[in-house]
């Protein structure tokens, strides 16, 4: 129990997060976000929206689930964004035999000191890429999900705080469903956003091939933002104004889905869409959230939390679209 980040009392986290020295203005946050996005786009072609969504999720203190067919660049996208920050990055390939301790870390016996010491797992990084998360058994999945929710892991009764900022970008294959452990809705709920990349446009694919056929450009990608800048930006985004009309709008949207789907948007979902909207406002250099921000973020932040009424030939996304076109903006 010598880890510096470990509290002596189990279940308690020592919250010693130094305040960032500089609280950036909204404009600076917007500049920062755009710089990161531009940097990432040097590597990833044709996924501007997805990049924006991931960057805003990071600013909004959320985690992202990328769901799509294999080979559309999910992993590359996550790596490129992680590299754009001066952050630690780790990748976990989830497999059916992966154990929770393979993710969180484990206590090992040190022969020299004759004591157990904690060896942190891959989750102790600023950006964690969990690849094909749905291939791991539920127990392992839940280890990751608990870390996402609590920003901490508990190993052998000892709680270890994770790096800050901490962002999980998980990917999930949308095919071969019968050979996977699909995440229950309750657990998907912990992701701020679920994104579907889709195949690139022909032009974009051609450009991508051109750039990556030799050395992959990601190897040359330089960080453009420090962790301190990211922390400051997150703090600034959290301060962005959300007035009553916006909160009421989000509440109406959530209620709409609750009335018209078997499982509607949870309060956590409502919170997520507001945080994402804050980040979106910051990206726009705006100090307050407008309904357009909410609309822009609603589909990606809410659709995966909705289970449509059984028998209805609709997806969660359809329900959200319907809510957006039915709920009054005031």
């Amino acid at each position: 129990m010598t880890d510096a980040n470990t509290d002596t009392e189990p279940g308690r986290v020592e919250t010693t997060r130094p305040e960032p020295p500089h609280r950036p203005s909204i404009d600076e946050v917007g500049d920062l976000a755009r710089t990161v996005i531009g940097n990432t786009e040097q590597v990833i072609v044709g996924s501007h929206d997805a990049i924006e969504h991931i960057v805003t999720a990071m600013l909004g203190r959320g985690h992202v689930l990328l769901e799509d067919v294999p080979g559309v660049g999910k992993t590359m996208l996550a790596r490129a964004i992680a590299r754009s920050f001066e952050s630690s990055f780790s990748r976990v390939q989830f497999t059916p035999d992966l154990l929770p301790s393979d993710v969180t870390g484990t206590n090992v016996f040190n022969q020299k000191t004759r004591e157990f010491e904690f060896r942190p797992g891959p989750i102790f990084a600023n950006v964690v890429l969990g690849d094909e998360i749905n291939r791991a058994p539920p127990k392992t999945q839940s280890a990751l999900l608990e870390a996402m929710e609590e920003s901490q892991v508990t190993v052998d009764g000892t709680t270890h705080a994770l790096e800050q900022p901490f962002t999980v970008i998980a990917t999930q294959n949308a095919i071969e469903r019968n050979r996977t452990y699909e995440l229950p809705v309750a657990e998907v709920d912990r992701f701020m956003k679920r994104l579907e990349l889709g195949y690139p446009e022909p032009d974009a694919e051609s450009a991508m091939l051109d750039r990556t056929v030799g050395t992959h450009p990601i190897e040359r990608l330089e960080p453009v933002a420090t962790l301190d800048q990211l922390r400051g930006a997150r703090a600034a985004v959290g301060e962005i104004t959300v007035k009553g009309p916006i909160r009421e709008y989000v509440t109406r949207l959530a209620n709409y889905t609750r009335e018209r789907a078997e499982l509607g948007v949870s309060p956590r979902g409502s919170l997520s869409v507001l945080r994402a909207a804050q980040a979106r406002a910051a990206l726009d250099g705006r100090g307050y959230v407008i309904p357009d921000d909410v609309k822009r973020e609603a589909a990606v932040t809410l659709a995966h939390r909705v289970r449509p009424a059984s028998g209805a030939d609709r997806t969660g996304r359809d329900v959200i679209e319907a809510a957006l076109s039915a709920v009054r903006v005031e």
Partner: protein
Amino acid sequence: MSTTVRSALAERSSRFDGGVRRGLALGAAALLIASFLAVCFDVADVAGGTNRLVLFVAASFVAATLLARFLPAVAALLIAAALLGVGLWSYVLAVPNGAALLRSFGAVRADVLALLTGLSILQIAEAGIWVAGIAPAPTFLAWYFALRRQYVGAAVVGGVTLGFFVLTGDAGAVVVLAGVVGAAGVVGFGELDSYGGRSGHAEVLVIVLAAMIVIAPLVSVVPSGAEESLVPSGGSGGGGGSTVEGSLLAAGDRVGIQGSISLSPELRFTVESDRASYWRAAAYDRYTGEGWVRTGDTRPLDGSLAGPPGNATTIDQTYEAEADIGLLLAAWKPVDIAGLAAEGAKVTDLNGLQPGDGLEPGDTYSVTSRQPIATSDALRTAGRNYPDGLAERYTALPESTPQRVANRTARITANADNPYDTARIVERWLEGTKNYSLDVDRPDGNIADAFLFGMDRGYCVYFATTMATMLRSQDIPARFVTGYAEGQRVAEEEWVVRGYDSHAWVEVYFPDAGWIRFDPTPGGPRTAVENASLEDARAGNATDIDTNASEGGEWTPTPTRTPFGGTNDSEPDDAANVQGGLEGVAEEEAEGANGTVSLPPGAETTGSAANGTGGDSSGPGPSLPSPTREQWAFGLVALAGLAAGARRSGAAERTYRELWLRYHPDDAPATEVERAFERLEYLLEQRHRPRRPDETPREYLAAIDADDRAVRVGDLYERARYAGSATGAEGDEATELVAGLVRERTPLLRRLRRS
């Protein structure tokens, strides 16, 4: 914001639920039922039995309400038929000789026909019992149908009943209009109730109903429209002719009371008689509060008539018509009539004469009358031993007659200890306290009460009506009589009678003497008015106003009209009144009154109405005519229709919006910006399309490709609303930008700028 307003309107519209629709339908049914019940209550008020009618009607409503839950329609129809049968049977039992009447099918058929062709219910005997027998059945059935949602059935029952009263002539225009509106409302709102209409449909119906109400009276207001006016245009009410004659003699079985009237100096007839008298045309026994009605049958004259019960003197008269006239005049009490013009003469139930056909100029007839003679002392001691039924018939007053009439009369006549003194005191009191004038505003409600307490002037009809009412309130049998005063005496035994001599007075019954005449109208002023009229006519070279003899003036000074000139009694005042009062002659009626109207009624009415509405000259300043109750109601209905129409057509909202667009209250900057944006939204809505509820302001402005100023206002609005921050400068800027856009939008300015 406008979307909020619209959605609120939509919500309210959809909230127009079944309860409201049903309430409206039932309300209309109640209006329809009330319309014919109003006729019944009017009759009951005059003829007696209001309490009984209230009881029956209330019981009908309660029974219908209770039975409507489970009773099938067939059973309800049977119950209504039974109610009607029982009601009519009770009536037959209540009237004298009723049972005998029933045995004669022809008589029943004749009575029904008479009712359906204009015989007023007020003219039938025991009318109060009759309506009490009739009213419950349709009330029960109509209300039953309305509660059963069989609205058409309710409308049919109510409509047929009201239609019956229309045919009898007892339903006034306002009542009929109310009934028609009620019937239309029952069917209309009933349909909405049955098929789930929305408030929009109800608004259309309100417009239609309001149009019915508003347009119907306009028919009589526009020039050359029909004559009867639903809404009195001035102080004078009622319809018909506007001369005294027209008002008195035009209608056969009833006399309405009018407002301002004028006099015609045209010749009517000449009389050769051995004594002066009032030439009597008709008498009326039933007072309705607003006029007089004669009850009973009119029968053909067959042989001689009985003379008065007491002493009498014979008067022989010969009448020559100088104009078309529908009367058989006679001094009271006629016993015999002869001459061509008397062919087919009829006798009313009150022993008045009626011609078979109208008289034409030159027609002559002669009448022998037996004028009662009695000294005042004899009358004082005549007592109150009246024949059976006479007191009931001639002392009846509408139940709505205020008690203060009786109280005032009792106070005035406190010193009188017999009917004769009472009558004399009332006659003198009216002569002395009220002024004579043809220019009066017809009061609402009970004429006698209004004249007694609210008016200081009037003409013979008011005086006579009031005196009869006052006497009846003291249980003295009195009736209202119309006819002509004696006219201009052109020879010892010849009188010329003109239109302005038409008159109304009172007859009082004394046992052993019969009907004795009393005239409460001040004589002097009346003669002055008449002479002025004659002078005017002569100055205007009018024809038909003089006979050869009459231009020379009076044969002797005209005796004072009241007290009327006496004959052989030595005590001038007393005897004159008594014996003068013993006049009598025929009574009757005048269908031919058209010929007596000398001027177009419109012209005269206009003049007098103008005077009437000008108010009293004693007033402190020019007074505006104050609207009557009917005018208020009319105005309110018109307003309701306009409001519904305006709402329906959206004109109300548009008007409001136009004002609101230009109204910029000084407010908190954030509010100011939001208001400015609402105005902008409205402008853009007019030019492009409304903002969809799910559209954000930004999406909307982009979708319609709004110009920079609008986008700027949108930005300011977003900041004000979603950031909660707005400076005064921003508020002003938004207001100014939108004001500019509003100005551009104004078509005239835009056109000017283009050119």
